[in-house]
């Protein structure tokens, strides 16, 4: 009863507040009015352009990929491992490429997820604010390094090291690509999961300590479970980074289109979807079957990243609901 009353009173006020910036009032001066109008139209234009370009990209890829999927059996596309686009009887089996993409991504996540979460916990709950304010920008700097520089490092430093120290027959392989990808996805994982961890309320931490829990217990039994949907979102965003990465996997994975056998052998070279597009697109004749096959792979990649994106949105909104913070 009381609540309804408050709502009744509060609603009009909130309504007015919400709309006030949009009301053009000549008493505010013509210049300000014009500025507001101009600013709004520019923002509107920019928004429209970005939305339009997203749709155009979608449209273009689907338009180029569909004829291929119609002519060529999708069943073979998804189940055949033979990628021989230039053979006399060309084969467009993308299974090995799909598996390759998943393979490096999952391996990269095995390295990056524990490291990322621990770093996030460490930054938000262990070190002082001063240390945090220095370390966090440094970690975020990792995201600013161009991927070709990472690739260069992989080929020139990591690959010879693997051959000489670990005795691998080839240095450009799944492990090399996965290590670099894990480093590249760390900034995303750390900063998003740190936001989630910081959003866990102070009262939860304090009650945990009040019950006599140690800091370790508080971190592992209270904070991480409370922030878990945010952390999952962070992992998914990190995966997106790894799935979509092109230059590094092209340079560091060896580009052999096969499913590793035995499956756990990381020293074998593999090939991903992105690397195939980057490597083949340069010299394929426009409009040929091979060209369309590459677009079909592009479409698949787009669908995968879209799904991952929606999933991360879902988890992030769950955190927001739970903690009332974040986003």
């Amino acid at each position, binding site marked *: 009863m009381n609540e309804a009353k408050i709502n009744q009173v509060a609603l009009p006020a909130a309504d007015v507040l919400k709309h006030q910036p949009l009301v053009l009032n000549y008493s505010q001066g013509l210049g300000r009015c014009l500025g507001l109008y101009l600013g709004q139209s520019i923002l509107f234009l920019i928004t429209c352009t970005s939305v339009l370009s997203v749709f155009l990209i979608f449209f273009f890829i689907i338009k180029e990929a569909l004829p291929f999927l119609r002519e060529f059996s999708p069943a073979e596309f998804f189940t055949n*491992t*033979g990628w*021989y*686009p*230039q*053979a*006399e009887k060309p*084969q467009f089996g993308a299974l*090995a490429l799909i598996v390759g993409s998943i393979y490096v991504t999952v391996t990269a996540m095995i390295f990056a997820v524990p490291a990322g979460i621990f770093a996030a916990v460490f930054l938000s709950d262990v070190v002082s604010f001063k240390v945090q304010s220095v370390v966090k920008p440094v970690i975020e700097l990792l995201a600013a390094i161009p991927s070709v520089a990472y690739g260069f490092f992989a080929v020139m430093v990591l*690959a*010879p090291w693997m*051959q000489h120290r670990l005795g691998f*027959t*080839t*240095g*450009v392989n799944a492990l090399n690509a996965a290590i670099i990808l894990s480093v590249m996805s760390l900034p995303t994982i750390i900063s998003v999961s740190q936001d989630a961890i910081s959003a866990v309320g102070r009262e939860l931490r304090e009650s945990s300590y009040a019950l006599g829990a140690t800091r370790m217990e508080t971190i592992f039994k209270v904070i991480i479970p409370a922030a878990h949907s945010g952390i999952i979102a962070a992992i998914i965003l990190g995966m997106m980074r790894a799935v979509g990465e092109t230059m590094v996997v092209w340079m560091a994975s*060896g*580009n*052999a*289109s*096969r499913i590793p056998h035995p499956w756990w052998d990381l020293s*074998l*070279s593999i*090939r991903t979807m992105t690397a195939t597009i980057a*490597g*083949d697109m*340069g*010299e*394929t*004749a426009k409009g040929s079957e091979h060209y369309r096959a590459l677009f079909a792979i592009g479409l698949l990649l787009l669908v995968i990243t879209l799904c991952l994106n929606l999933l991360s949105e879902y988890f992030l909104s769950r955190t927001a609901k739970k903690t009332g913070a974040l986003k």
Partner: protein
Amino acid sequence: MKKLIVCGLMMLALVSTGKVTAADKALQIEGSTTVGPIADAFTESFNKTYPDIKITVTKNGSGNGAAALIDKRCDIAMMSRFMKLEEFTSAVDKGVMPVAHTIAMDGICVIVHPSNPVTELSVQQIHDIYIGKIKNWKELGGPNMPVVVVSRDTSSGTYETFDHFVMKKVKMDESVEYVSSNPQVHSRVKTTLGAIGYVGIGFLDAEVKGLKVNGIMPSKETVANGTYPLSRPLFLFTNGYPELGSLSYTFCTFYLSEKGQEIIEAKGFVPVTHY
């Protein structure tokens, strides 16, 4: 800012008018990335002798070169393979008569790491390595070491030649690694003990070991006289035999001159001459 735009527009106008007036003195060359460096060097040498001509060299693959010649979009097509039957047919349909000028020879060298004791392979053995039948150097009289097989990307002309001579249209094994250029093959083989790869003869140096194929060492001599089994001619194609004395004619026969042969050798290919 405004000044900049005006300047830009004026330059654009200048360039476009320049092109139109020099149309008879311009040459459009398109095609193979392998032949590209030779054409570039020819152009450079030409520009020194005739400073007012304009030659454009576009490197976009043999297939694109052929297509451009057929569509009359270029004067000369560079090709690292001979024209295919379908290309000839569509050329004749459109009233274009392709004429081939063999300007140089290229050998494809099979290379391994310098520490590898294997010195000689037959075409059949190379074939077996690339289809995955031979997986260890032990089977070829080398050390007990798995073979790391490196190939060029399937869209390259070098790949096509290798495919023609060695693979005979049989598919390569799935474990074959693909790289996108000659220098990349070179550096993969240089740094990998068990690797085998193939490059154009110009990329053969002391850091990798070129193998004898069917008992014949790849060299300028064996490539030029055709005894080395993996050698191929490089072509320039024109629409009909170029008019004597024309710019196309001078360009297409430049390989016969001493300067032209020097350039071809400097670019790592083999001039068509007797050694």
